[in-house]
């Protein structure tokens, strides 16, 4: 169910900014398993695009296709104005890729990793050393520069990984789950790094399972589900797709939960968590009326949380295969995790 469909080629309108990445009808399957079932994309140059989806949705496959690692079964794509299948080498010259799995050489030092990249980009020796020093400094790796990369922490490895990607100044950067497995501090550092990249005019294509991350970073977000783009738009546009928020009451006493549920007919029940979800816009007035009502009925909830619609709701609404009704916006109806 494509909710907002964007034009997929740059040839259509004359007013659009040039596309850094465009794709039409990308398909890929492994044996019987269809991983991508017709993906259309158009990413304007200089923007941040997030491909959001659960494990097994096809995020990594999309990145692998667009970064020339694997070829699509059908469909077309241009990256930096070059056709993927006709001129992969030109695409490679324009992109930088940081994959989901650490792409550093653990046996050599961080500095040697960087110099290796400089050599492979055919930078002159002096320039290579200069770039290496600058990037190591910028990513706070100067101290660890002479240590083998295998001794780095997860966050350091990821920073080195991105630093290596930046040698050679790619115009388009693919980041496949750049913050997966990082602790909160390292994640925020990574976000700042990505924001800085964009200020430099780079186009960023990132994949993530975290809605918060897409919300924080991306100009446009596409929700990938079962090999298709279920929706695409800005975070605001996506949030508008689903109805409002709710107030969540949680009980510890099953009897109280039961009683509240029978009294509050408009609420939806979550029996496992002993919770009730009452549709609400989160305003002070509504909140007060609910509190008054609880007071009057002599029901005491152990926890009350106000839940405004966020990308989680959109995500679950779009990716639940069964289809979710409007008054159950937070049903954790996650699709099965597919082994990649």
């Amino acid at each position: 169910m494509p909710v907002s469909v964007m034009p997929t080629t740059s040839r259509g309108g004359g007013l659009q900014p040039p596309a850094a990445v465009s794709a039409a009808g990308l398909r890929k399957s492994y044996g019987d398993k269809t991983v991508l079932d017709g993906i259309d994309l158009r990413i304007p140059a200089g923007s941040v695009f997030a491909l959001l989806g659960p494990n097994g949705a096809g995020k990594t496959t999309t990145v692998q296709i667009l970064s020339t690692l694997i070829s699509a079964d059908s469909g077309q794509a241009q990256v930096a104005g070059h056709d993927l299948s006709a001129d992969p080498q030109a695409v490679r010259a324009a992109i930088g890729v940081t994959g989901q799995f650490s792409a550093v050489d653990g046996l050599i030092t961080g500095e040697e990793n960087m110099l290796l990249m400089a050599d492979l980009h055919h930078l002159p020796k002096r320039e290579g050393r200069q770039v290496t020093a600058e990037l190591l400094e910028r990513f706070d790796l100067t101290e660890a520069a002479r240590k083998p990369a295998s001794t780095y922490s997860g966050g350091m490895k990821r920073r080195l990984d991105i630093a290596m990607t930046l040698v050679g100044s790619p115009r388009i950067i693919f980041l496949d789950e750049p913050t997966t497995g990082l602790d909160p501090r390292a994640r925020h550092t990574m976000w700042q790094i990505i924001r800085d990249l964009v200020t430099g005019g780079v186009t960023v294509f990132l994949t993530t399972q975290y809605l918060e991350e897409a919300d924080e970073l991306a100009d446009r977000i596409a929700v990938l589900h079962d090999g298709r783009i279920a929706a695409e738009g800005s975070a605001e546009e996506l949030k508008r797709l689903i109805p409002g928020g709710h107030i969540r009451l949680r009980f510890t006493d099953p009897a109280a939960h039961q009683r509240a549920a029978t009294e509050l007919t408009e609420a939806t029940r979550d029996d496992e968590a002993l919770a009730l979800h009452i549709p609400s816009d989160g305003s002070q007035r509504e909140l007060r009326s609910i509190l008054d009502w609880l007071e009057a009925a002599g029901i005491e909830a152990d926890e009350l949380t106000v839940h405004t619609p966020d990308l989680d709701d959109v995500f679950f609404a779009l990716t639940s295969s069964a289809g979710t009704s409007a008054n159950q916006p937070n049903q954790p109806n996650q699709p099965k995790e597919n082994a990649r």
Partner: protein
Amino acid sequence: MSTQLAPARPATGLSLAVRDSTTMLRRNLLHARRYPSMTLNLLLTPVMLLLLFVYIFGDTMSAGMGGGADRSAYVAYLVPGLLLMTIGSTTIGSAVSVATDMTEGIIARFRTMAIHRGSVLIGHVVGSVLQCVMSVILVGAVAVAIGFRSADATALEWLAAFGLLVLVATALTWIAVGMGLSSPNAEAASNSAMPLIFLPLISSAFVPVDAMPGWFQPIAEYQPFTPAIETLRGLLLGTEIGHNGWLAVTWSLALAALGYFWSKSLFDKGFDKGANRR
């Protein structure tokens, strides 16, 4: 952004291939230098065998050769075979390091960069051949230390011997690289590369082919190691080379070509397989 860099100069064709392969070679040599333990372990086998066969079995073995040969004659007989065994043993290390390398994320990174496609493998091959040469020199030094002397080989013969060793090393390395690429991990690579150290045992390295059971003689005589060993013997010790010269060269060229095309096709289609393996 503070880093504004000049765009990478586009390089094409041969210069790109040479340049990128050199970079990859430097990377592999750096690995070998940082972690010499595997190279040294693999070097231990031929050296141990050399000492074992000379000092422990030496008298019996030389007596078995007949013609009043003594232990020093057996040293001379043994060394050419052990030099080739050294090469076989060293290339096992190449199979293992290629297999290990392919599980590393950095290979995927290389594939997304505008570099010469074959440079990753060429770097491995050249690195491995250089290691073979180093190992041969080390084992050769041990051999000289325990009394090996060439029987008046000319400079040309020394050169030919060196050329033969490099040729064999190149051929076995390409095969080993293919074995490494087709193995899911280091253990499997080390297992599938076993023939490279096993074949010399059933060649003319330790005993002459004539001394083997009749039914086995053709196998021992025409397997890749025996012609190379006999050729090396001829060059260094002045024994008769006969048809072994061109047999050795043909075997080497054929194995090199086979290994090259096998490795190339594995590497080119390798990514999907590698991704599924995780």
